[in-house]
């Protein structure tokens, strides 16, 4: 399939087109079904329709990727390349897992509206577009699409004050960060007159800072200012340290299934955008934003490690864990070498899959004392997990050790590869601080393990048995993580190809 032979070039965005059109159809379909007189519960059927649509669009993505060529369509606003292909594939499979895993939770919490599933699909559409956006405006629109879906998802439990509170906090801070993004983009547009990543790349090639000194053709400092604003906006979305304050409240308040979704899935897409902007287009400004980023990294690792120590609720703990993990990922991002992109992708993939594992174990286990609508919120609720389902407890322990970055797990390998990039680019101090903080961080994971195993349980069997479907998915994930440790070559080869593409500028 060569470019010249294509009659209809827009075929490369077929997955997004398919997803969008089927979403519109699903909205109509569900509305007509739901307005019947007896208000039938169509939540399950919508879920399976959503899974079908999502898996079909994943299949389309895969089909695209069979012959990945860099091809931009719709007036160069959307590009299809290997990084977009692979990240879309990962995001698609992550959200498939999410949808299937959150089903028991949705049923038990009586989230019966069909909109819930559709909003998740809308968010996935936004993430897909984000992965393949090729200019600042498309990126902004994609971010807005996914964020708006997330705001609604966060406040979906209408009769819970916490949930509404979470939604509003998320909305205000999200809107604020989006406006920062727009401001930065407009500054850059004002200076350069373009918003396209390709053209940025042509303008600001590696030798740009030298040109900056000699001529006054561009106001470089304004571009830098715009870049920092964009960086701040994206760091807001990633919830790293100075910009993390919204995260604990939002994650704690919103329904667990929503938290599950926006804790696991969108990080990869945001990182793709970060890579496209800061590596692909503006690598000439590397030195100017690097030190800013290093401070953020150190701060977020410290906050993530020490903040998690005093948490008594599982979701808050996972928030702080994700803050420190984003810090580790940003170490690789701020190293600025060819290997660092490779390690960054390896880290993100493993982080997403192990996060998926932790969160799905958290959502599918349901306590038997349901009279308070109380799901396992506190850490101490896990105390009976070992008694009631010891296989799940073993899986949970293994995955926790992996997330903590403890040796015979894949989490360790990707973590040391991140530290390796830090050392190779002579960031010894950052490496030292973050590795010491990782010991502190390990403490709260092993506290979870202590709760699972070491405490005496007086009453047993407090959990409902989990469904066969969920247990199959969990064990698939678990064996994926084990396999990746035994044969990590797969991971590194895949991320090698991504870094080849991005680092043509480096």
């Amino acid at each position: 399939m060569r470019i010249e032979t294509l009659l209809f070039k827009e075929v490369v965005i077929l997955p997004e087109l398919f997803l969008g059109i089927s979403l519109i159809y699903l909205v109509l379909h569900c509305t007509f079904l739901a307005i019947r007189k007896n208000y039938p519960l169509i939540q399950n059927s919508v879920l399976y329709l959503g899974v079908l649509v999502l898996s079909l669009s994943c299949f389309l993505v895969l089909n695209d990727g069979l012959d990945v060529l860099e091809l931009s369509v719709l007036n160069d606003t959307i590009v299809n390349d290997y990084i977009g292909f692979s990240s879309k594939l990962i995001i698609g499979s992550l959200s498939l897992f999410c949808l299937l895993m959150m089903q028991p939770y949705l049923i038990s919490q009586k989230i019966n509206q069909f909109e819930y599933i559709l909003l998740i699909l809308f968010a996935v559409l936004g993430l897909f577009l984000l992965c393949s956006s090729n200019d600042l405006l498309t990126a902004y629109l994609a971010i807005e699409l996914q964020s708006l879906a997330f705001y609604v998802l966060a406040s979906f439990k209408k009769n819970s004050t916490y949930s509404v509170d979470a939604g509003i906090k998320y909305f205000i801070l999200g809107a604020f960060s989006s406006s920062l993004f727009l401001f930065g983009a407009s500054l850059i547009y004002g200076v350069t007159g373009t918003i396209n990543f390709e053209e940025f790349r042509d303008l600001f090639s590696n030798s740009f800072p030298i040109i900056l000194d000699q001529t006054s053709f561009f106001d470089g400092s304004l571009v830098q200012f715009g870049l920092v604003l964009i960086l701040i906006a994206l760091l807001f979305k990633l919830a790293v340290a100075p910009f993390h304050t919204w995260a604990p409240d939002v994650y704690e308040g919103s329904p667990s299934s929503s938290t599950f979704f926006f804790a696991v899935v969108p990080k990869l897409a945001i990182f793709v955008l970060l890579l496209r902007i800061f590596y692909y287009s503006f690598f000439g400004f590397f030195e100017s934003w690097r030190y800013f980023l290093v401070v953020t990294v150190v701060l977020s690792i410290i906050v993530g490690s020490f903040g998690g120590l005093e948490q008594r609720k599982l979701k808050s703990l996972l928030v702080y864990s994700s803050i420190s993990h984003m810090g580790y990922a940003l170490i690789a991002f701020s190293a600025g070498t060819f290997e660092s992109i490779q390690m960054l992708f390896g880290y993100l993939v493993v982080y997403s899959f192990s996060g998926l594992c932790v969160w799905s174990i958290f959502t599918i286990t349901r306590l038997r004392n349901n009279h308070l609508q109380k799901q396992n919120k506190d850490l101490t609720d896990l105390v009976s997990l070992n008694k009631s389902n010891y296989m799940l407890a073993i899986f949970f322990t293994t995955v926790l050790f992996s997330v903590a970055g403890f040796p015979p797990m894949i989490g360790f390998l990707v973590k040391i590869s991140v530290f390796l990039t830090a050392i190779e680019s002579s960031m010894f101090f950052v490496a030292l601080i973050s590795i010491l903080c990782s010991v502190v961080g390990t403490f709260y994971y092993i506290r979870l393990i202590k709760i699972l195993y070491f405490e005496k349980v007086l009453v047993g069997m407090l959990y409902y048995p989990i469904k066969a479907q969920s247990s199959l998915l969990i064990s698939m994930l678990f064996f994926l993580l084990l396999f990746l440790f035994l044969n990590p070559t797969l991971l590194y080869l895949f991320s090698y190809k991504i870094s080849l593409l991005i680092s043509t500028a480096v």
Partner: protein
Amino acid sequence: MLYTKNILSCILLLPLIGAFVLAFIPSSNKSLLRSVALNCSCLTFVLSLLLWVFFNKSIGTFQFVEKFFWIPILNFNFSIGVDGISLFFILLTTLLIPTCLLASWDTIRFDLKKYLISFLVMEFFLIGVFCVLDLLLFYIFFESVLIPMFLIIGIWGSRERKIRAAYFFFLYTLLGSVLMLLSILYIYAQVGTTDYEVLLTFSFSPLEQKIMWFAFFASFATKVPMVPVHLWLPEAHVEAPTAGSVILAGVLLKLGTYGFIRFSFPLFPEACFYFAPFVYAMSVVGIVYASFTAIRQSDFKRIIAYTSVAHMNLVMVGLFSFNIIGLEGAILQSLSHGFVASALFLIIGVVYDRHHTRMVKYYGGLVHTMPIYVLIFLFFTMANIGLPGTGSFVGEFLILTGSFKANTTVTFLSATGMIIGGCYALWLFNRIAYGNLKTQYFKNYLDINEREFLIFFPLLLGTLVMGIYPNIFLDSIHFSVNMLVELMYF
């Protein structure tokens, strides 16, 4: 002629296979679980004896070397092999694991399956530590040992302080070893590989050596343990079940000394010489302080734990004398300590199973009811002091001879440790074995049974052989140590 090419990987994988098999046996079938685990570990021991038989004593390089690709992109490969230094540590591990399984034959009341699986998995990790020839993989195995040990202390530990003890154990060791991880990554960034035999040919600048030596030291000194970071050891020993203490004293402490011999010495020789006075000072403080502390303990296990600290610090003195006699003595003393300290913990386990207390004041006059037990106890007490004819004597003698060449004052000061050692060991033995039988506390007067005797017998035999004819051990160690010393000086 047996096919010996893959014997090392067989030894390495056999416990893991055993753990895998155990996972599929229903946990209600306890006798089958026990027998599978015991047979698997005994088979591993027999295979490792074969390793010793086929070991070529006249070369000092690595034997039974096998290489597998792991991450070819990053140049991390899985290579294993043994030389004279690591051979006996592997033997010690494979001997102690079946001993541990026998010792906890019917004292584990719940979760027997997980207990056995964690022991076999730990055996896999420990053998891995001693035979792996790659720095990163060494780190991976070195750290992985923490997980099963953490679970063993935490789940099957004895009192409510066990959680604190498990945390102490985990976090102290982890904090030390992350610094080592950083310097391993630095080495990788500099050299481009972590293969041990390649690293031997590379020399770092003095400043790099000093910094990295210190990072390695932070990790290994926590394991040995040297004095300011020894705090985890009494806690962990006291709270762990008997078998856990045995492994902890018998093998885990040796990871520290093994790490020094294997990595710190050949990779950073200049830094070793530079920091030797520092290590001497720390070790001497460790010996004297730990011996005095042992005298005033009231807990049976704590006394033996502090004894371990003192003896391991003596091993450190031997290591940092940097001559063949001292190094061989240190290795031999590590081995003999592995026998003696684990036997002493097993001795505690025997009376703990009968009376469920470890306080010395409740015991007395055991010689009246348990003569065989007291005989074994006497033997190991004497071995602990370093009586001629036991392995400890040979080890301590060689260590002191070696360090006499390097630093006479240190030799003198560490020899005082042996005298204080006589105090606490004899005092303890006297309180437990002699005096009036405290019938008001005792309900159970059984002497040791056949199973318990079988546990002690190999350890007893090993200690005696090591004391009477140590050459069968030293022969195999000699050439490897010789090569190591040559590497350091040239």
